[in-house]
């Protein structure tokens, strides 16, 4: 009961979706279309678990006055502020049938002045991290590391004057070695092949893992009896 039925469900759902790829007839076609919506709905129910867990962790911190408990108040306040603004459609002019993130709504305002800048600043940290990672990782320690270094360096200096002055003096028969031609070649040849091999490998890995799941061989996620 605790393991057999779940394994049967996985088997049936996986098989139906694969069959639907080759049989465009109902009921398979219909199930294929509906299953992804089913999945979305289940994920929304799961939000209750996730959100509940987040609240429990932070309220616990506050209650027990653990390290950094004051910041947990910020999390909980932000959570409820956003949740109520969105669920109650505060500030939405068209009432309950209006767009919950329409212009003038509190939800959109909060999104614009907190979520958006926080998210894009976090994203922009990458500009700093690509620099520190390049400095640390691109060192010619082995042949492999040297190839990584050279490919990255050629592509990296391509848009700079340095890229131009490094190779502009090459005589005509060697012009194919200029940074700009070299970077074009690296992008079009080794880069393309590398991506292709990785994609073929990944596809096989995913097909095999999917099969293991459908056949119930890989079942760690189900827990014990």
């Amino acid at each position, binding site marked *: 009961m*605790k393991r057999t*039925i*779940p394994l049967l469900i*996985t088997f*049936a*759902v996986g098989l139906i*979706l694969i069959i639907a790829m080759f049989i465009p007839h109902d009921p398979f076609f219909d199930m294929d279309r509906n*299953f992804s919506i089913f*999945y979305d*709905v*289940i994920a929304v*129910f*799961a*939000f209750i*678990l996730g*959100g509940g867990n987040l609240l429990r962790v932070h309220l616990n911190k506050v209650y027990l006055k653990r390290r950094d408990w004051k*910041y*947990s108040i*910020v*999390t909980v306040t*932000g*959570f409820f*502020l956003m949740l109520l*603004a*969105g669920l109650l459609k505060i*500030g939405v002019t068209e009432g309950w049938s209006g767009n*919950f993130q329409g212009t003038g709504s509190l*939800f959109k305002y909060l999104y*614009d*002045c*907190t*979520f958006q*800048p*926080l998210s894009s*600043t*976090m994203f*922009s*940290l990458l*500009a700093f991290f*690509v620099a520190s990672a390049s400095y640390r990782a691109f060192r010619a320690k082995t042949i*492999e590391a040297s190839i990584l*270094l*050279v*490919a990255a360096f050629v592509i*990296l200096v391509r*848009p700079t004057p340095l890229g131009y002055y490094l190779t502009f003096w090459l005589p005509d028969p060697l012009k*194919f070695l200029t940074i700009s031609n070299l*970077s074009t070649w*690296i*992008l079009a040849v080794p880069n393309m*092949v*590398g991506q*292709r091999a990785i*994609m073929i490998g*990944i596809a096989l890995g*995913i*097909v095999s*893992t*999917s*099969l293991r799941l459908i056949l119930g061989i890989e079942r760690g996620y189900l827990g014990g009896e």
Partner: protein
Amino acid sequence: MEAQPILTSPFAASLGMWIGGLLTLMILSFLYRDNPFYKFAEHLFVGISAAYWMVVGFWTTLIPNLIARLWPSHMGGILPSATANKPELMYVIPLIFGLLMLARLSPKASWLSRWAMAFVIGFAAGTNFTRYLQSDFVSQIHSSIAPIYSPGMSVMGTIGNVFSNLVIFAGLLGALIYFYFSKEHKGVFGRTARFGIWVLMAAFGATFGYTVMARISLLTGRMDFLIKWIGGIFT
């Protein structure tokens, strides 16, 4: 819009700019070290964003794809367009699975949530199987089958072209052999795999170098915002 002038007023806009600007600086301060400002921004971000996605899930999935499909006639006030539809009883299934998911909240019934997880895993296996088989496996093999020599080019062009195509051909086989798990990488097999790794490394370097520009654009965007905000204070 006229009924709610507060949030669209110039004051709200400039307040929003201040909040956004301060939060931007707080996140950037993490580059120096962890500090109370970063902790504040981080904790705020977590709370706000978790609720954001819950609200989005509620209004864009739960209401139109579950409630409105099961009880369309009751949707008048919220989703008027749905009221004319017939109820789709099939959507009792995700409702049941969704409720089973919540069985985790009770220790005794928590095993029931596995049924919902089993659906999710089956869905993952089925969709990924077909999607990757098509777009990654079959179509990549298709585009790999290309002639190494193509006639009608100049001598130099032909040499360059054949060289590139040989790199493509050998590199692909080498990299595939690198991913071959059944055999140790020794002898000819090992050398081919080594060439495969080189090609992979060149690809990694190229992707890394190529992405740098996009990342700096992001930072430029944030800096532009800060300049606009701070510049706005003084003018």
